[in-house]
Structures are given as C-alpha cells and as structure tokens.
C-alpha cells in the first residue's frame, strides 16, 4: 500500500551496519574541515583572549589588594601623625599654662616690691619733710614769739645769745610743764 508511494527505491536498502565508502569519506572530510578550522584558525584566537582575560582579572585583583594595603599603611601613618600632633598640642598647652602661672607670680612679686618701695620712699619723704618743717618751725616760732614778747614787754631782746637762751629756757619750761602734766596724769 505504502511502498508504491515511497520516493525511495528498494535497491538502496541494505545492511544498515555496513557503511558505504562514499559516506565514510564524505563524513571524514567534513569532520576534518571542522577540526582543522577550529585547531588552526579559530581556537587559537579565543584562547589568547581567554588567557589575556584571566591575566587581566588576576592582575586587577592583585592591584586592588596592593592598593588596599597601601591605603591601610597610609591611614596608619596618618593616625600615628595625628596622635603625635595631639600629644604635642597637649604638651604645649601644659607648658603655656606653667609659663603663664610663672609670669603671673613674677608680676605679682614685682608689683609688691614696687609698692613696698614706693611706700618706703613716701614714708622717708614724710619723715624728712616733718624734720624740715620741725626745724624751720622751731626757728620761725622762736623769732615770732620773741618779736611778740618784745613787743609785749617792750624789752629789747635783740641780743642773739640772750634771745636764744630765753627761747630755750621757755621751751624747756614748756617741755617740763608738759612732762609734768603728763607725769601728773600718769601718777594720778
């Protein structure tokens, strides 16, 4: 039924395990063409690219590692420098504080010395002034009181010696009376 429609003609069939030489040679040539093209032409190109890629990737990884190590090293260095700087700053601050305290102490001492000196000088000045005033007053008061007395008693007391004797006596009497009065106050 079916075979009269088949395109295949019966003489073509045979033992399927017995190959025809035409096909064997045809298949062999076809395979060899594929093999030689891959072997000589195509695979060498791709294998160089694959090797290059592997190298690039490995090189890239290594470079990244190196960079990381470098970054780590630099960071540690900066950290160390920063620590140094902090210590230095602390040290300077401490020094400045000490110096400041010292300066203040010195200034205070100087000021006190100056004050003492000024006070001393003022005191000496006052003492000298007092002495001077006392001396000049002693002379002035003597003259004035003699003139006053001579005017009152009409007695010429121009004689120098006499004048001074009178004044001295007067003053002595005055002192005596004062001391008597103070002694009397003390005894009473």
């Amino acid at each position: 039924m079916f075979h009269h429609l088949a395109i295949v003609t019966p003489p073509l069939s045979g033992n399927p395990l017995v190959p025809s030489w035409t096909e064997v040679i045809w298949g062999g040539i076809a395979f060899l063409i594929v093999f030689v093209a891959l072997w000589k032409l195509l695979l060498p190109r791709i294998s160089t690219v694959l090797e290059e890629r592997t190298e690039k990737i490995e090189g890239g990884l290594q470079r990244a590692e190196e960079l990381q190590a470098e970054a780590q090293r630099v960071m540690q260095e900066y950290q160390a420098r920063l620590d140094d700087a902090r210590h230095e700053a602390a040290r300077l601050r401490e020094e400045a504080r000490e110096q400041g305290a010292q300066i203040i102490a010195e200034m205070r001492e100087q000021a006190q010395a100056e004050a003492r000196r000024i006070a001393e000088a003022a005191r000496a000045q006052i003492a000298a002034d007092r002495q001077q005033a006392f001396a000049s007053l002693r002379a002035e008061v003597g003259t004035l009181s003699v003139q006053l007395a001579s005017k009152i008693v009409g007695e010429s007391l121009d004689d120098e010696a006499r004048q001074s004797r009178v004044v001295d006596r007067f003053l002595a009497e005055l002192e005596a009376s004062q001391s008597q009065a103070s002694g009397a106050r003390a005894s009473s």
Partner: protein
Amino acid sequence: MNHVLAAHAASSCHIFSGCGYPSPTIQDFYFRPLFTIGDFRFDKPMLLVLLSTLIVLVFFWAAFRKPQLVPRGVQNIGELGILFVRDQVLRPQLGKKGDSWLPFLSALFFFIWINNIFGVIPILYFPATSRFAYPAILTAMVWVLYMGIGIRKQGPLGYLKNLSVPSGAPWWILPLLAPIDFLSNVFIRPFTLSVRLWANMLAGHVLLLVFAMATWYLLTWSYELVFSAASFAVLIAITGLELLIQLLQAFIFTVLTAFYISGAYEPAH
C-alpha cells in the same frame, strides 16, 4: 523523515480506509540521490553533513573572528560552548595538560551534536548520525588516535600490557582476564562507541516517525481523532526527549573519546 511524511501526506491512507498502519521501516534511512556524478551519489544525509560543517564553521567564525576581551553577543555563546567542552569533558579526563586536545574534542562534540539536532529540525527531520558511516568514521579516527598515542607514549608492549592487564588482578586469573580485557579495549570499545551513537539516533528517528505517522493515520472525523491528538502530544513530548538525547549522545561520545585518550597517555590506575 520528511520524504516519508511527504509521501504519507500525499496518500489518503487513514484508518477505516481499508489501509493498514504504514509503520516506519529501515528503508526510511535510505535516500534516493539528489544528484550523481559517475559513481558518486549525493544524498540527503550527505547534504546534512555538509550543512552541519558550514553551521559549525560559520558560527565559530562569527563568534571568534574578532574576539574581544569583554565578550559581546555571539562570542559569549561561542565561549560558553568551548568552555563547556573544556571544563565538562576535557579537564575531568585529561587535566589541564590535555588542553591541546580542545580543538579535536570541540570539533567532535559540535559536529556530532549539530548532526544529531537535524533529527528534530523542521524540514530537515533527519539525524545524519543515524547513518552508520558517520559515527563509524569518527570512531575510526578516535581509535587510530588513542592506539597511536598509547603505542608512542607507553611503547608497543607497555600499551599492550595496559590494554590487557587490569591493575590489581591476581596473576592466576590473568589467562582468563587478559584476552577479555584486550578484546574489550581494542575491538569492543570502538564498536560500542559508534553503535551507541548510531543506534540512539536511529531509534529516536523511528520513534518520531511512528508517532508522526500515527497522527496522520488516525486523523479522521471519528472518535479516532482523540488518538490522533494523543499521538501528536506524544510526538511533541518525544521531540523534547530527543533534544536531550541528541545533546547527551554527543556529550557521551566526546567524554569517552577523552577517556580513551587519557588512558593512552598514562596507564590506568
């Protein structure tokens, strides 16, 4: 398959039309020549083999013509294919020092795979590897290679010992074991290598034919339509299965080749 189907479709051979189921025969693997030059008869499987050669060449030419460090487009796929052969087939058997075998193993894998795939490609519908000549010539090349390498690397006697004497066998069993091992390694190996591929492809093609023909044969306006639809569903499922088997057979052929070559380089442990 399509010549059979074309003939089949042209026929009105359906169930209930007084016509028996036209089961596929070995004749479906023989083709009338497309043209002849003297004794040279050029038929469809030969055309498919030529086509597969062109496909592999054009694909890898497009992929690796100007390879870029950062792969783009078809180069990615090409690299995927080559690295699959290298990492799944070559390296496990031969190690890194066997990388010089990459062109041979890649050519084997892709040549066989593309020729297998033709079995499910519409219009073509014929795996060229289901013609025994093609697995046979590939196996012959592999056999010559591994025997040649074995004799060169281990010396004729050394390789003979490697082929015949399994390591660790007690001496008194050797008279029995050595002939079997020699026979197995020298004659049965190439036979199984080629027949495994050929028979798988032949059986797959027959399976597809059975269900494709059944789909057509049962296609009538009756309850048989259900069986026609079921046959079609099975046809689709088997097509998926065939895709897997085609890849698997190409893979197994290449892995075994790498294994035989590695055995030729150094004695088995």
